């Protein structure tokens, strides 16, 4: 049994191998649910739970899954987790589940979940797979929260719904940037994050 460096399993997906900025997975939902920090935060938590638990469950089942239907089996497991999260949000965090609307359901199609199951959980023991899933979810969530921070601050002048930019600024002629609310600006912000990250980590730059 090969030794697993738990530190690397946990930290790599957050910075050096971030699923959004390095692997460029899960872009769609990071554009859609980053208008407000609150929504982004709950979305991040939901994705962490889903990636972690589905990697864990698939890893437990990995030796029994028939190879020909393995993608379908993975999908069933991911869908199960997503629906559980959706139902629980609807019951206990109704207003947030309303703002996230369809995007919770769309975690099923989030490339990170399936990507980590295929790449890691199918070949590793349950505990490292769980950690890998959680860490990748967290890496995704981190980017989500960074983007949402700027979008909510510049687009609505609030953070977590609390007004940050004082009324006197508005009286003096300051206006919220409506473009930041729209998805194209989220993509530009994401591009900026990728740029900043690559200027620090030179080994990520392509020649």
């Amino acid at each position, binding site marked *: 049994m090969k030794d697993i460096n738990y530190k690397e399993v946990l930290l790599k997906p957050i910075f050096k191998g971030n699923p959004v900025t390095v692997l460029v997975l899960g872009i769609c939902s990071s554009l859609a649910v980053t208008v407000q920090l609150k929504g982004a935060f709950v979305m991040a938590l939901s994705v962490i739970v889903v990636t972690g638990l589905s990697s864990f469950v698939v890893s437990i089942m990995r030796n*029994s899954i*028939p190879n020909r239907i393995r993608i379908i*089996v993975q999908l*069933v497991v991911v*869908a199960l987790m997503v629906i559980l999260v959706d139902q629980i949000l609807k019951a206990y965090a109704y207003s947030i589940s309303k703002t996230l609307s369809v995007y919770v359901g769309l975690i099923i199609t989030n490339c990170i979940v399936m990507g980590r199951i295929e790449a890691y959980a199918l070949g590793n023991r349950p505990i490292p797979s769980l950690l890998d899933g959680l860490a990748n979810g967290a890496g995704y969530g981190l980017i989500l929260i960074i983007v949402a921070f700027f979008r909510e601050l510049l687009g609505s002048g609030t953070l977590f719904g609390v007004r940050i930019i004082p009324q006197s600024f508005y009286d003096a002629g300051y206006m919220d940037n409506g473009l930041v609310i729209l998805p194209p600006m989220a993509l530009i912000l994401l591009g900026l994050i990728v740029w900043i990250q690559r200027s620090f980590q030179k080994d990520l730059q392509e020649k």
Partner: protein
Amino acid sequence: MNTNGNTYTVIYSTVLVILVAAILAFVAMSLQDKQNENVKIETITKVLTAAAQSDENVSIDETTDVLGMYTDNIVDAFYVDGNGEVTGHMNMGKENVKDIQVPSTSDLKKQNDILKKISGSKDSTGQAELLKSLNLPVFVFDINGKEVTVIPCYGAGLWGPIWGYVALASDGRTIEGAIFDHKGETPGLGAKIAEAPFYTSFRGKAFGSGDVVFAVEKGKHEGEPECVDAISGATITSQALGKGINLWAKHYQPYLNKAAAEKAGTEADAEDTADMDAAADAETIK
């Protein structure tokens, strides 16, 4: 064991799917009550928020005991048909707040389908029957001594249904407040119908008596009480909302007119009796 055989694959997938279905069914059933409760509380909050806008001193936020406030302020909640006749009553939860009945969005959709059929039909006997089959909800509140009638509206937005509640003064025309919601309009554009700057612009407007009872159109509309400014960048959502309010308000007219006339009648009666009393007093003094 051969995990690639056909029999194994079929058995494996069957067992997996049945297992997952069982888990989901169990979770859905155990959480269903809580979820329905959430939806109901949201509807009650909307209805109450629309009514509460009639009084600036009343505010509703996340800490408000919505159910308690609803039962304290509601006077009557019932259904009317297209001729203004009362067809049934809703439980107002006076004994137990858990029993409060409010129409769900699917109830509103059903009524909306009938309303659309009515405006589409040319056959007058069929139309009359459809009018009778309507069950339009009406909520009457007493907000600090002021009588406010709340009626819903429903329409098809850009991406999904939009609906809302409009609060009317006792004349059945003047809008005291309004609130809207949507299933999935574009955030930042159509979704703005659910935000304060838009819905507060309804206050002080009034239903017209002509063919167009209400409209949402671009422009300032000063001196045009039956029209509010639309949201720029959300033309379809705005128009849909205008159409929805117009369609619903039109079919509430028979009830609203009747209620307003009755109200005016009782007030006039009260004055008459007062006059007669005064006259009788004058007689005795003589």
